[in-house]
């Protein structure tokens, strides 16, 4: 264990360290308890008011330094989550961020209403940026007013912390973040995946049945850094960074920019305990550099 003070605050929520898992890459948070108890917080798989089947397989394609996924939000639904997963999750003693998704504002509202009755949830992450569920038309993030209406609606429903998870597939993620902050978000999570596709030349077909999927992994890290920087320049609420973080050094880059915490996503597929690897590498680096508190590191990038 590290002698460095790694604790951070995302609004009212204090995390013992700034490394969380990214939604959809760590199951419901209970599958790998040994790793989960060491994280700063757990973000669950995105939950919807009703259970969802998700998309037909194959759902995964590997790409250069990354991968495409088209899971389609397969999840047990809010009800079963509360009954079957939440008790084990709470037993871990790690901060709990429940990711919530939906096709309509009402879907979000209903899910949050139900979850709000359940004890032990520290924050909601509103997944308004899933590129794989488009029945309602397009991503909420592509229409800022739609994003705002999700946030302001659930804002009236709950006193718990609301994190808005943004899409990078927009012209200005900075102004989108501003809109979300204005609508009542307590923090911004950036970024979700980039829209991408892959083709099977022999079959002359897209590799994913739904044609496009979401690109994640180290390939997107340089873009995620630039996107997080855009958000940081436009809003004063805390920013949780995600996108291509696989090592402690990767995480430290986003914190240096000014993100208050980071999420490890695709990295978990290299090792189910990759989040703890990131945490340990981060602490070791800070120790070597003589940084005694993560607060001194966060936002200390020198730009001329």
């Amino acid at each position: 264990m590290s002698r460095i003070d790694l604790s951070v605050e995302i609004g009212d929520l204090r995390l013992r360290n700034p490394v969380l898992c990214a939604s959809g890459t760590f199951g419901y948070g209970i599958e790998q308890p040994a790793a989960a108890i060491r994280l700063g917080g757990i973000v669950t798989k995105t939950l919807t008011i009703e259970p969802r089947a998700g998309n037909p397989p194959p759902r995964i394609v590997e790409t250069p330094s990354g991968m495409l996924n088209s899971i389609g939000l397969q999840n047990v639904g809010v009800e079963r989550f509360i009954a079957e997963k939440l008790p084990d999750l709470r037993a871990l003693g790690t901060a709990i961020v429940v990711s919530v998704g939906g096709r309509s504002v009402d879907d979000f509202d209903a899910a949050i209403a139900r979850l709000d009755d359940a004890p032990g949830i520290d924050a909601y992450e509103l997944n308004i940026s899933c590129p794989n569920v488009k029945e309602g038309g397009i991503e909420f993030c592509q229409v800022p007013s739609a994003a705002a209406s999700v946030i302001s609606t659930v804002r009236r429903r709950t006193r718990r912390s609301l994190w808005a998870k943004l899409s990078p597939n927009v012209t200005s993620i900075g102004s989108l973040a501003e809109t979300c902050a204005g609508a009542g978000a307590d923090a911004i999570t950036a970024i979700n995946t980039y829209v991408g596709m892959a083709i099977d030349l022999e079959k002359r077909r897209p590799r994913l049945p739904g044609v496009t999927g979401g690109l994640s992994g180290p390939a997107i890290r340089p873009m995620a850094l630039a996107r997080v920087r855009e958000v940081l320049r436009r809003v004063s609420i805390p920013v949780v960074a995600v996108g291509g973080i696989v090592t402690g050094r990767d995480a430290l880059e986003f914190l240096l920019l000014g993100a208050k915490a980071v999420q490890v996503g695709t990295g978990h597929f290299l090792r189910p305990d990759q989040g703890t690897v990131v945490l340990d590498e981060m602490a070791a680096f800070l120790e070597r550099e003589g940084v005694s508190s993560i607060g001194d590191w966060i936002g200390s990038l020198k730009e001329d």
Partner: protein
Amino acid sequence: MTGESSRVEARVARILRIGDAGTRIELRVPVSFVVPRAGQFVQIACGAGDAFRLRRPFSVCGWRGLPDGGEISILFSVVGEGSAWLDARKSGDRVDLIGPLGAPFRTVPGRIPILLGGGRGVAPMLHFADQIAEALPDGMLLYGARDAHAIFPTEGCPYPVYRSTLDGSIGQKGTVIGLLEQMLSRGGIRADSAALFGCGPTAMLEALSRLAVAAGIPVQVSLETVFGCGTGLCAGCAIPLRAKPGAPEDPFGRYAFACTDGPVFDGAMVDWEAVRE
């Protein structure tokens, strides 16, 4: 699954190229590695360090317990960069793997195990035979391959091995399903006392399952799909299932996860039309 699998630095004990059939690699694992059961798999980090590459799943094809750990063996063919990396290992090299993972084959009380392996799908069947032959000595292995060159050696197998090749160069000419049908019709295998266990190409497993369902024989098959994590985290490894007759509608249950619910599934429950698409 907790506590049942672990990440270990294995060492290559032996690596052997078997003609066209592929490669057999034997990996030394420490005591922390739980004894794998037939049908389970390991997730191998194929490629050291710098470049990002998802782990690759490989079925365990044999296990040898040793005082300070054990050796798992894997049969594999080179189809891309990951398997090519594994194929280039030399004895003594390190291999980072996670396992054992997934739901194994399970014997069916009162039924004689009939094991069917197609191509490199014979791997877990050899392991299964090793595991159950003592308790269930009457089983047998039906093994189909493309031709004589593509056959993995099965010497040590405790069950009698019946072989088929597409070109007839070894064993009966035709598919392993043809061989099974023949043995069923000639009484060498009896529908009322057999249980079928298969691993191989999807088309073979579908044919096997349809035949089994039609004949009222229990059937378990090991299915492959593209994996993200192999450890139940990503929901990437969907296998479409039929709705349980009479059960309440359950959208979530439409797809099971090959890495944790499987890779071994009840062949009667798989929605083969959807798999084929």
